[in-house]
């Protein structure tokens, strides 16, 4: 509990609408503008205090892919030759909507 109260917690928890939880590094998640604003400590949002973001409108499958993208982004940040990320076609519309929502 003490770690979650501290604003500089290293990991944040992303929760999907159907209850899946993904724990990823804070810096990685902050690629998304929406999450960055949610976790901004000066805003006093409940997400910023608890380090836990709940996305009611994202399903677990989509959020998993989003987290995969966050890690992919982190991994290839300084690369010059970036490989393509593998996205199943049936997910790409939902991912597009999620990207729109997450501003990433």
């Amino acid at each position, binding site marked *: 509990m003490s770690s979650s109260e501290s604003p500089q917690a290293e990991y944040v928890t992303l929760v999907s609408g159907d209850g899946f939880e993904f724990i990823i590094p804070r810096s990685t998640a902050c690629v998304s503008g929406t999450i960055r604003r949610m976790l901004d400590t000066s805003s006093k949002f409940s997400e910023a205090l608890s380090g836990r973001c709940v996305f009611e409108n994202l399903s677990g499958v989509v959020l998993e892919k989003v987290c995969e993208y966050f890690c992919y982004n982190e991994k290839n940040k300084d690369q010059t030759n970036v490989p393509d990320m593998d996205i199943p076609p049936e997910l*790409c519309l939902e991912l597009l909507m999620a990207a729109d929502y997450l501003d990433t």
Partner: protein
Amino acid sequence: MDTEPPLPPPRRVRHRSPTIRKQSHSQSRNARTAASTHLTKASRLSRFDDQSSQPSSDPALFSSDDIPASGLENYHTPVSSGTRKRRYRGTWWGETAHETKRKRADFKEKRLVDSGVWMGSDESAFASEGLSAVEDGEGWGEELVLMSRAEDTGTATEMDVRDQQGRGLAGVRAGFGRRVEEEPREHQVARAIVNDCLEKGQDSVDLSGGNLRAIPAGLLRPLLHLTKLPTIKEPPITEDVYSSLQPFLRLFLAGNALSTLSSELFELDSLRVLSLRNNKLTEIPPAIRRLTKLQELNLSVNRLHFLPWELLWLIKKGDLKHLTVRPNPLLQIEDSEILQWHVLAEKQEDPTAVKSCEYNGPPPEESWAPIHVATGPIHRYNMEGVPISDSTSTHAQSRVPSLREAALLCFSRSSYFDADAIPDDETIGFPSLTLRLLRQARDVRNAGGRSCSVCHRNFVIARTEWIEWWDCSTYENGLKGPRSSGERLRPLPFQRLGCSIACAPSL
């Protein structure tokens, strides 16, 4: 006495049918039909006679044994006399001869007669309306003509709209599902020309002046498989008989009304000559880079403000020798903002001065090569494709595509979402921005895709864009000669696109 069903003696049957058979064989074919009608009449009569004893199941087949040599031993063997065993269907008193050939002839005759039964087809909707709405015999024909005319024009405009949107195969496939033959006339003509060339093995495909507003789907793809026909000559065979059957493919689309090019055009990787003169093109898709064997390209009399940078690649690394771009409303270097000059360092100090430059110093090979004259300012876009004014400091210099970009690229690649496979009612819930991006992805896909001019990744939304000025005057209008010293350079604007903020020239 009369109430009893009369049973005709079997002997009569046996005696009559062989005689008819003999008659029909001896007489000509015309007479055969007469005999058959006679026969059917007889059978019909007898059938009416004994309705009470009519079996409900399929009548049994049995054969006559009136041929002398027939028996159980040679039941299946063909009879030497040539006449086959007759087979009878039904009860032995029913006397229906089973003769398929005659039935067939009857059927053929009957086919021409209007049965009065009207079979519905996929175009039945309007036709049946016409029939029911107008009752008198004279009026309904006119009505039908009118209606079909209205339908024709309706679909023509529909097709045009569809073409203007530049949809891919799926649109046409959907069109095929509903109506097959209502293609605009100019498309039919174009298809006829292409088919003619394919059949005759002509590698010069002339579709010029055809009034095409877009290249219809499936028109050009068959040209991939065009093969020249061998020239057949009289016996003194000379060397030139053994010419290559590889086509020297030339495609002339001049004098049409094309405003977009389809990706299908860029699949013709054996294309050598392409003329797009006198069209309404505002942009040449970067996918033109795929036409690696292109030797001659005519883009004059269009609405181009700049050329794709990939064209320069075709000049430098490809075979393109003859490029015709003027006249076009191209950007002029004198009127454009220039970030950096690459020739004539002294001009850099005084950029507002005369922005014309001359070529000096002729190293022999380089005097042919295109010269990078200048680079224009770099425009940057955010991940939604909206221009951003402040330059880069806040944005990470990362080459990683945004999630939006990754999703869009996946979308444009998958055939799962074919051009307009997303139904309208599904798109209502989408944010307008997403819809705009999806449309853009579709357009990029239909234009043959884009790839970053810096890192060669495929992408949908350009994040950087800038103009480079190159002088290609040695390649314009054919190879005439290398530049002479002191010749004035006439740089052309080439647009470069980058897939990420980091994909920009380092200045």
